[in-house]
């Protein structure tokens, strides 16, 4: 357990570092933030991608191994304890953590304490098991004094006579930690296998566009894309209509996807992930049409007959105004479209400016105009065959915690005295003094 605790502490520290250091940045970015020496250390220790670093994966593997070994080692002892605790011979004749003498309605007392399945019999029928009993290991509980002050002694073999009652409850609770460990193991396994084997692609385009989905062989067609706006101009939903064709058998399947409503098609999950602006770009040379293309914000187009000349669309402002802090959009409707562009020639920037819809950009013989701005959709396509395993793992963890916390194993047994009253004992593994209090309070009613 010491190793497990140490491992958990190291993982906690690692996660803290991973959350504080922005992940996935370049050396230059870290140098700017933390200085060159720290940036070097971050790159050397793979803290820039900590959660995928070899040492973090190794720590996770150690944790899995630890959980596995812990469960393998503990399983026989849990089974042994379960069997022993269900055996009245292992309890009757012994003193519990709490005891009370003089109980008259013993069955009522058992039921009031939540013990419904009561085993009754004669103590002599329990055989000679009492002598070979191991010391009781009611972990986490302390010896408690008896209510009546007359502490029950462990019965000797010659005292083994009279009736007894015995009941055990919530023995499934003994499996709580074990089940929880199993769940964590399944969860990490599902996550790790998912990460290692997942297929993930991103496609984007405008309605009418078709594109291959990575190397899956499938072709995705964007049938429609709509940005649902509320009256206050905030976005209510992004909805895309898609059709996927599987060339191997020509099968077609269509679906509508929106945020929080992905679709499963041919074993892949399609998510409406993001959106942005795209526009038509029209280039003429000496007044003659040269090129018609679509340009996406954040992307560029090379001039057809002069590839070294590049038009880059830095940003698009649908409702453009020039504010104090620079260009901005006052709404998301294309009421006054403006295109923030930059022009590069042989990787050297020639200029940067904002161009309104009606304006033209002239570069020597070339004239560039933008038009027809519209939203494009960005769709994430993913297959993770092990998500179900992680989900099962999570549910098993929940089950384990419920078993561990809320099914507290307890035993109660009673021995009839010569005057007809009963001396009742009980042990609760995790109930401790609270169980003892309840035992005493309940006993008062049955004396």
């Amino acid at each position, binding site marked *: *357990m010491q190793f*497990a*605790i140490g491992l*958990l*502490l190291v*993982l*906690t520290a690692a*996660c*803290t570092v*991973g*959350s*504080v250091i922005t*992940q996935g940045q370049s050396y230059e970015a870290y140098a700017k933030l933390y200085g060159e020496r720290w940036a070097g250390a971050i790159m050397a220790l793979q803290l820039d991608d900590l*959660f995928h670093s070899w040492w973090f994966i190794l720590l996770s593997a150690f944790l899995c191994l630890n959980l596995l070994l812990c469960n393998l080692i503990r399983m026989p002892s849990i089974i042994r304890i379960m069997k022993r605790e269900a055996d009245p011979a292992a309890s009757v004749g012994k003193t519990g953590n709490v005891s009370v003498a003089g109980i008259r309605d013993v069955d009522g007392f058992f039921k009031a304490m939540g013990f419904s399945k009561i085993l009754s019999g004669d103590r002599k029928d329990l055989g000679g098991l009492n002598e070979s009993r191991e010391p009781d290991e009611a*972990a*986490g509980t*302390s010896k408690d004094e008896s209510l009546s002050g007359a502490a029950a002694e462990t019965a000797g073999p010659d005292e083994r006579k009279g009736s007894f009652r015995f009941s055990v409850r919530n023995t499934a609770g003994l499996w709580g930690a074990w089940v929880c460990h199993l769940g964590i193991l399944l969860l990490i396994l599902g*996550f790790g296998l998912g990460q290692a084997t997942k297929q993930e692609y991103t496609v984007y385009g405008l309605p009418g566009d078709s594109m291959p989905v990575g190397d899956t062989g499938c072709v995705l067609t964007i049938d429609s894309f709509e940005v649902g706006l*509320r009256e*206050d101009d*905030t*976005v*209510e*939903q*992004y909805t895309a209509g898609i059709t996927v064709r599987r060339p191997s058998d020509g099968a077609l399947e269509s679906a509508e996807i*929106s*945020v*929080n*409503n*992905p679709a499963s098609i041919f074993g892949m*999950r399609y*998510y409406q*992930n993001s959106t942005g602006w795209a526009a038509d770009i029209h280039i003429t040379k000496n007044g003659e049409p040269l090129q018609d293309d679509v340009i996406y914000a954040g992307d560029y187009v090379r001039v057809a007959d002069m590839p070294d000349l590049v038009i880059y669309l830095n940003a698009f402002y649908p409702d453009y105004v020039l504010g104090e802090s620079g260009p901005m959009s006052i709404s998301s409707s294309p009421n006054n479209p403006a295109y923030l562009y930059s022009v590069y020639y042989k990787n050297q920037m020639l200029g940067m400016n904002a161009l309104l819809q009606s304006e033209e950009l002239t570069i020597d013989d070339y004239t560039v105009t933008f038009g027809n701005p519209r939203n494009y959709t960005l769709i*994430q396509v*993913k297959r993770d065959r092990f*998500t179900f395993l*992680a*989900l099962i793992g*999570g*549910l098993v*963890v*929940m089950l384990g*915690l*419920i078993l*561990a*916390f*809320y099914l507290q194993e307890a035993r109660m047994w009673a021995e009839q005295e010569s005057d007809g009253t009963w001396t009742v004992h009980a042990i609760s593994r995790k109930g*401790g*003094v*609270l169980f003892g*209090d309840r035992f005493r309070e309940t006993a008062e009613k049955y004396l």
Partner: protein
Amino acid sequence: MVNESFLQIENVLFTVTMLLYFAAMIIYFVFVAAQKEKLARIAVILQGAGFVLHTIALITRGIGAGRLPLTNQYEFATSFAWGLCLVSLVFVLRYKFNVLGTFAAPVIFLIIGYAAMQSKDVHELMPALRSNWLGFHVSTAIIAYGGFGVSFVLGIIFLLREYMKDQSFLDRHVPSKEKLDLIGYRSVALGLLFLTFTILTGAIWAERAWGSYWSWDPKETWSLITWIIYSIYLHLRIRRGWSGKAAAIFAVAGFIAVLFTYIGVNTLLPGVHSYA
């Protein structure tokens, strides 16, 4: 659609709730300082009344906003205070432990005070938040934080118990260390169970909204850190010598992680939960 009249009612209810919590806090203090047992009952009633009004305030805001009131700092802070109030009341009544209220009331008041400082404006939900999972995810987080909040308070009481003289008023009203330790364990158990549920529902929701059930977003990572810290607490309890004082210190420290997960992550570590 936002209904302003409901939001105005909520505003009044929220203010009255704050006043009731404040009054409960003061009376709880007087109960201990003046050692008048009757005051404890009044304080519990005031806290209970505050809780009822708080519940009505949350429902009213939900109606006014046209959605579950669990989506911004104000709404989560007021819900956090509500959750802590609920769990502390349950523990006060179940374990007949009025002094717990004395220590829980200031924490509840601080959190609802933090809520009062946040913007109460109602904004429409972004598409990612428009999900049925929102209710499950955030409401379980509220109970989890409530459980951890109570364990924090119990940890402090445990540590102060060392300095309580035998037969003093507090000594009579504060359970034994062994019992405090057990109640603390039960509050952590409640918190951890609900935190697990929170993480699980969050993961299912994230898979639907973002295509990835776990992406090491700072909020996710800090939820995991909190989960691990309380797991360590549970493991340490099993080891001999780690229940009692050490466990109490751990419960107090663990709540710092809870607070950082709630407030620190949103303000210091940008991520996909930055709106929360």
